[in-house]
């Protein structure tokens, strides 16, 4: 990759983080929980986006960020109240800023009209808020045409106007250049603040032969008029942090004429001091410089380069994926080796067997560590949702407050990237179909603003996403009518409430009377259901008329490995996910009760659960085996249903590497995936939920429901 492209890619990554911080900060302020630090953080985020954009010449992005920054600046200095309306505008501005960043990436276009409208609103905010202290318009950015008709405004914030001036010594480091910033950019920014005198310090420039082209040797001394606020100058350098040493010193008494031009040698000595070099032969001058600052009641600001702690690294995802694949192979290989050693008849206490046990533990640890590398908080998905909700709320005319919980819940990267679409659909559905209009809400005595809650949590080795709304709940009567009208169920079908609720997952079902551009095309929920099932997940609804609905989505934490119970059914070896198994037992004859011609139930601790013969359920045999000679797995499905699965024997418990059946063959009902066992044979992984649901297959009313699930 071209080095500039690499730097740009890093910039865009940083942008994503900054934009997320920006939105988070604004939301915090909106919830009246923020303080000065939050406003500062928000300001810095916009400023840093703008800084990098300037370095790469994204002029439109810079221009918009500038207006945004100006408004935030006014808020920071207390001239603009961080109240609801201003923050709502700023949230929309952050959406537009994100669009600009996307456009700069070459993905998507900016809605110019919207951008201009928001830019004007922002400018109006500051115009109004700034009052009489508006200084003359700052010059437009170089080459960047402010073609939106707004005027960038600049405010003097906290520094009283005084004569004299600032002496700025700017020494970039090599790291700054390596990140794609350039000294020229900062000098240009400073010049935009005010006219200044620039002097270049060549004293450290080596001979051409000795010069290392990516090393930084130059430094600049600038004289800036004293009426520029210190914070304004420092902000220019905000986003380079320690990568550019900046020394800002006040010089000159209040009377400008008395400002003594400091002899150049002072600065060189100063520079030496900044770099931590011994100021050879310059020691007296250093002292002099210090005295000068002291005598003038100087105000010194210094940011020295500091060693950066190697806290995080960015790694190409492909490399991690490759490692995971390899570790998967290692696990299989280790299992095969263990099996062969077992078959060779070595004693369990032999050194080989002990060594193998240790190897197994190590393998397991490696696998856990590798999986942990790929685990990410769901925040990256959640943080896109506030914007989505704002946009849906805007276009439906509903008032929505989104409450998010559990953003820190970690889940494997493979799952994360496929969470976004289902959550998007569920939120759309909750707002468009779940929440009532503000008038309707007021009519039934609810607050006009509806609340949609998006929560993530870990539950028994799975990640559960819940979307809760406080809307009108599912109108079961209407759902039923529509399903009958569309021929999805028979008109005399006796359906439980739960079954009616599940009708909305049928393909081609839509209750919206008008097709909106958000949902209502009837492709929503069945697509959600299918995409979730493809991930080995499940979706469930609970709804209470008048009070709202809860959509619960449950997914495996990883799509790469699974803890399973290896069982034998007839000639086949199967793996049952351990998370679904409550207990295993061998029933006594009097605990098995016949029920109807084919059915049977098992008495377990005072209750009865259906007995399902796996061999029959999967079509491997026609008559069930006697449960008392087999083994029963007591399992529980996601929705809470229990059943007793009859298998021939249990072979053991182990972690298996999931090999997708869809990717290699096709989807098979009741089978979640496959794996390769230690002996090299393929074993199928049981989809317990489907097996449990399959009980209803022979009930004719539910044929369609079963098809939909």
């Amino acid at each position, binding site marked *: 990759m071209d*080095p*500039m492209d690499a730097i740009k890619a890093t910039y865009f990554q940083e942008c994503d983080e900054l934009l997320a911080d920006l939105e988070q900060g604004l939301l915090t302020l909106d919830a009246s929980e923020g303080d000065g630090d939050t406003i500062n953080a928000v300001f810095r985020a916009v400023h840093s986006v703008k800084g990098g954009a300037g370095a790469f010449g994204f002029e439109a992005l810079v221009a918009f960020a500038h207006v945004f920054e100006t408004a935030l600046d006014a808020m920071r200095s207390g001239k603009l109240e961080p109240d609801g309306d201003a923050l709502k505008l700023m949230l929309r501005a952050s959406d537009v800023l994100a669009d600009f960043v996307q456009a700069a990436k070459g993905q998507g276009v900016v809605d110019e009209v919207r951008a201009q409208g928001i830019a004007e609103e922002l400018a109006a905010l500051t115009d109004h808020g700034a009052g009489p202290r508006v200084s003359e318009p700052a010059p437009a950015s170089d080459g960047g045409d402010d073609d939106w008709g707004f005027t960038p405004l600049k405010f003097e914030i906290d520094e009283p106007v005084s004569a004299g001036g600032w002496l700025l010594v700017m020494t970039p480091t090599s790291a700054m250049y390596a990140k*794609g910033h350039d000294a*020229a950019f900062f000098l240009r920014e400073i010049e935009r603040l005010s006219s200044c005198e620039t002097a270049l310090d060549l004293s450290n*420039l080596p*001979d*051409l*032969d000795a010069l290392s082209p*990516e090393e930084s040797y130059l430094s600049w001394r600038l004289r800036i008029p004293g009426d520029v606020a210190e914070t304004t100058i420092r902000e220019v350098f905000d986003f380079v942090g320690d990568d550019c040493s900046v020394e800002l010193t006040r010089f000159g008494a209040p009377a400008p004429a008395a400002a003594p031009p400091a002899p150049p040698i002072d600065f060189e000595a100063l520079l030496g001091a900044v770099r931590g070099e011994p100021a050879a032969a310059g020691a007296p001058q250093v002292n002099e410089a210090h005295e000068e600052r002291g005598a003038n009641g100087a105000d010194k600001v210094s940011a020295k380069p500091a060693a950066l702690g190697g806290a995080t690294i960015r790694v190409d995802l492909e490399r991690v994926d490759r490692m995971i694949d390899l570790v998967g192979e290692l696990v299989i290989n280790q299992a095969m080796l263990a099996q062969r050693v077992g078959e060779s008849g070595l004693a369990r206490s032999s050194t080989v067997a002990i060594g193998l046990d240790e190897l197994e533990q190590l393998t397991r640890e490696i696998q856990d560590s590798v999986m942990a590398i790929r685990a990410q908080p769901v925040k990256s998905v959640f943080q896109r949702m506030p914007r989505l909700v704002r946009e849906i709320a805007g276009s439906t005319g509903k008032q929505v407050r989104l409450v998010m919980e559990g953003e820190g819940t970690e889940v494997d990267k493979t799952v994360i990237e496929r969470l976004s679409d289902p959550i998007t659909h569920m939120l759309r559905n909750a707002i468009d179909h779940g929440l009532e209009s503000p008038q309707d809400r007021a009519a039934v005595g609810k607050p006009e603003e509806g609340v949609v809650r998006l929560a993530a949590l870990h539950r028994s080795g799975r990640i559960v996403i819940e979307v809760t709304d406080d809307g009108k709940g599912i109108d079961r009567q209407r759902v039923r009518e529509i399903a009958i009208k569309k021929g999805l169920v028979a008109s005399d079908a006796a359906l439980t409430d739960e079954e009616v609720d599940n009708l909305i997952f049928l393909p081609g079902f839509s209750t919206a009377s008008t097709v909106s551009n958000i949902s209502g095309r009837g492709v929503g929920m069945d697509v959600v259901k299918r995409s979730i099932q493809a991930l080995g997940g499940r979706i469930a609804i609970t709804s209470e008329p008048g009070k709202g609905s809860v959509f619960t989505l449950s997914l495996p934490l990883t799509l790469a490995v699974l803890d399973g119970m290896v069982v034998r059914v007839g000639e086949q070896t199967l793996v049952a996910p351990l998370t679904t198994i409550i207990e295993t037992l061998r029933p006594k004859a009097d605990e098995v009760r016949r029920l109807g011609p084919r059915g049977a139930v098992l008495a377990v601790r005072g209750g009865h659960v259906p007995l399902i013969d796996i061999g029959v359920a999967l079509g491997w045999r026609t008559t069930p085996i006697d449960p008392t000679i087999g083994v029963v797995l007591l399992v529980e499905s996601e929705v809470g249903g229990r059943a007793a699965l009859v298998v021939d024997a249990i072979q053991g418990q182990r972690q298996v590497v999931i090999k997708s059946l869809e990717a290699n063959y096709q989807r098979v009902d009741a089978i979640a995936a496959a794996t390769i066992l230690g002996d090299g044979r393929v074993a199928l992984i049981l989809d317990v939920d489907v097996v449990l649901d399959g009980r209803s297959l022979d009930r004719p009313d539910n044929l369609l429901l079963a098809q939909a699930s």
Partner: protein
Amino acid sequence: MALPQILDFAAAAPLRAELAAARGAPLELDASAVERLGGLCVQVLLAAEAAWRGDGQAFQIINPSPAFAEAARLMGAQALISQEGAR
């Protein structure tokens, strides 16, 4: 010798190499195509100018583009182009 359009971080090393190879003879650099001039390349050009001066050879940057002139001015490196008139 003509200077490339973009003189940024990535251009500094090739520029230094080219200049080092041209050493020992009078040099005229055509800056008419330059669209962007960054700090690192300014360093190289300044070091080259000093080197040629030390060798007693002529070193000139001719036809500076507006972008080149502006960046040189911003960075206080006007000497790079103003010497054209001086010699």
